[in-house]
């Protein structure tokens, strides 16, 4: 059993990375839109560098707790290193040590269970508060991050918890249905309903996380899909259970979804921007929907462990990630947005820019986009979702 656990863990580690990438696209648009306001890059950190030993007294071997493909080399062994943390390596001479997670919930669970030690961690926005509440994090000193001034100030606000910059948002993207227009009729209004459409039985893929609960809530029109009541959750659970038979499989790794979408085993799926990029590059006829319920947008960011021994290393690492170079890598290779406003959109094909609205400054504004929010009762969401899975 332990062997299987290990194998599984390795596989899982490899899967999660795609999701992060999705965030990138959104970021670029917002960045473009908000560039004027960017002079607001002042430090919000308060812990101060003075209380920490200087960088040459730090142990190094920075422990990075991150998604697969975000620097550990699972997807682009050389590029990830050179583009995401090459600057860091040059500056500090350090090689980060990666521990990978499959998804936000699994990462948080590991941290709570105390089975992972890390200096920096890279969750998505809706989990920030959980991490801070856990008492595991400390705010960044943004004055130690030169590239911080290039980051979109509007998006930086999402990384502020309890008035302090606990997280620095970096990559962003959407969640929306991706459909194969050779087989799916898209003449009507775009909607998440396509993922629950009886006529496409066996050709649909959902994601294998409790995020499906708020997607269901969004489609059913509940007032706040991120804070549903028990009645609403039960309603969503029953709805999803009744539609589950339409689903061919639920993906854990967006690359699995892409492979299946490419082979036309599924025509419709819960999708991040990376799959849109792949479909575009493969010349497929696709539509990345702008559902009438709104695309869900997500932004993931880097946080600093409270008990880190690598305070300055961590800041340098984040600075490397915040660079224009890193932003263009994420956009060009993973089709994700990045909060660095100086990134050049030309690294992405025009089709992808169009599908993701990268050049549209309003793409992230409600109601076109709904920011993925903190879910106060995520454990309850998860219980209902477990019941959908087991039904």
């Amino acid at each position, binding site marked *: 059993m332990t062997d*299987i656990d290990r194998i599984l863990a390795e596989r899982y580690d490899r899967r999660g990375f795609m999701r992060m990438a999705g965030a990138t696209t959104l970021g670029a648009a917002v960045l473009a839109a908000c560039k004027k306001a960017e002079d607001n890059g002042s430090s919000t950190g308060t812990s101060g560098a003075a209380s920490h030993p200087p960088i040459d007294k730090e142990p190094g071997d920075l422990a990075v707790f991150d998604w697969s493909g975000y620097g550990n080399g699972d997807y682009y062994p050389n590029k990830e290193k050179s583009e995401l943390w090459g600057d860091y390596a040059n500056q500090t001479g350090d090689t980060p040590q990666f521990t990978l997670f499959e998804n936000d*919930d699994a990462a948080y669970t590991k941290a*709570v269970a105390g089975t992972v030690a890390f200096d920096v961690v890279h969750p998505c926005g809706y989990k920030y508060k959980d991490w801070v509440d856990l008492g595991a994090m400390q705010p960044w000193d943004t004055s130690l991050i030169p590239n911080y001034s290039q980051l979109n100030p509007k998006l930086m606000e999402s990384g502020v918890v309890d008035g302090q910059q606990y997280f620095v948002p970096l990559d962003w993207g959407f969640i929306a249905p991706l459909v194969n227009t050779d087989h799916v009729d898209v003449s009507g209004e775009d909607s998440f309903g396509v993922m629950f459409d009886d006529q496409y039985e066996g050709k649909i893929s959902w994601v294998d*996380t409790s995020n499906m609960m708020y997607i269901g809530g969004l489609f059913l029109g509940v007032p706040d899909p991120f804070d549903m009541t028990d009645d609403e959750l039960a309603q969503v659970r029953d709805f999803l259970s009744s539609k589950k038979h339409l*689903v061919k499989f639920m993906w854990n790794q967006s690359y699995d979804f892409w492979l299946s979408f490419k082979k036309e085993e599924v025509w419709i799926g819960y999708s991040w921007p990376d799959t849109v990029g792949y479909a575009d590059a493969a010349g497929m006829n696709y539509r990345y929907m702008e559902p009438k319920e709104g695309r869900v947008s997500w932004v993931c960011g880097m946080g600093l462990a409270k008990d880190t021994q690598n305070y300055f290393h961590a800041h340098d690492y984040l600075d490397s990630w915040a660079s224009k170079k890193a932003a263009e890598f994420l956009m060009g290779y993973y089709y994700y947005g990045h909060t660095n406003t100086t990134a050049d959109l030309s690294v992405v094909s025009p089709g992808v820019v169009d599908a993701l609205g990268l050049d549209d400054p309003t793409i992230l504004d409600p109601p076109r986009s709904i920011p993925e929010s903190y879910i106060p009762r995520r*454990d309850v969401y998860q219980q209902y979702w*477990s019941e959908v*899975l087991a039904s």
Partner: protein
Amino acid sequence: MATEEAAASAKHWRRRERGVTAALLSAPMLWLLLFFVAPVAYVAAYSVGAIKLFPTDTGVISLDGWRHFFGGGSIYLGLFWKSVRMSLTVSVVVVLLAYPIGYFLALCVRKLKYVLLLVVIVPFLTSFLLRVLAWKVMLGDKGVVNSLLVSLHLRPANEPIEWLLYSQFTVMLVLAYVWIPFVALPIFVSLDNLDRSLLEAASDLGASRVKTFLRVTLPLSLPGLIAAFVFVFVPTIGEFVTPLLVGGTNGYMYGNAIQDLFTRGLDWQSGSVLAMFLLIVVAGLMALFGRYVQVRSVAAD
């Protein structure tokens, strides 16, 4: 005097023997205690809320988790029976398919016996994960099987057999494939130890080959057969890797529910209840099978 001495010496030896036994056993016992008994006790404690790890845990001892599990609205019991059904099917099929392999190796082959045995277990040299993933390539809509059917004009190109992948069938097929070589071993061993003179005697007394098989070979190999059945049934009932990779939404099993509750559900209490229930059922079954095997071997003697 001499008898007293002998008695004392015997006593001394017995004591010494006991000491040696205890010393030899202490390491494995300690191992079991640390890495099996203690964790199981921890999970059991968690299942009744005696341990608080997450902010969402109540930390209050109660049987609510168990009550919820057995309660009317619980979906997990249904899921458990579904897994039992799948696992039973797999076990029966695997034993039926592995028996001829064991029989052939034990009774029909002489010189090449161990070479062929090696061939049977060769798949173990490949990663379990790879072997499971290979089935995805074979069973997909555009996989080997469907492509073959299309090229033979047995299926129209746009209508592949969809239930080949991501279904209960797939999970059972892959599990059967994975377990057959493993299960052939205990069957082989029990048949290999068969006293051939019994077969000769049966033949001398005029029994037909079928009758010999039914009255001699099969009853004598029954312990191996049952061991083989248990070998498959027990691990597959809690299986979660195979359904995760090839099961899709229909192939979801009890083991997946446990995994989900632990890894992302943050609901370790429910996960512990599910895990303990599985452990109890499996332990009960083992006890039952263990008795059965013993009785049969005695009867066969």
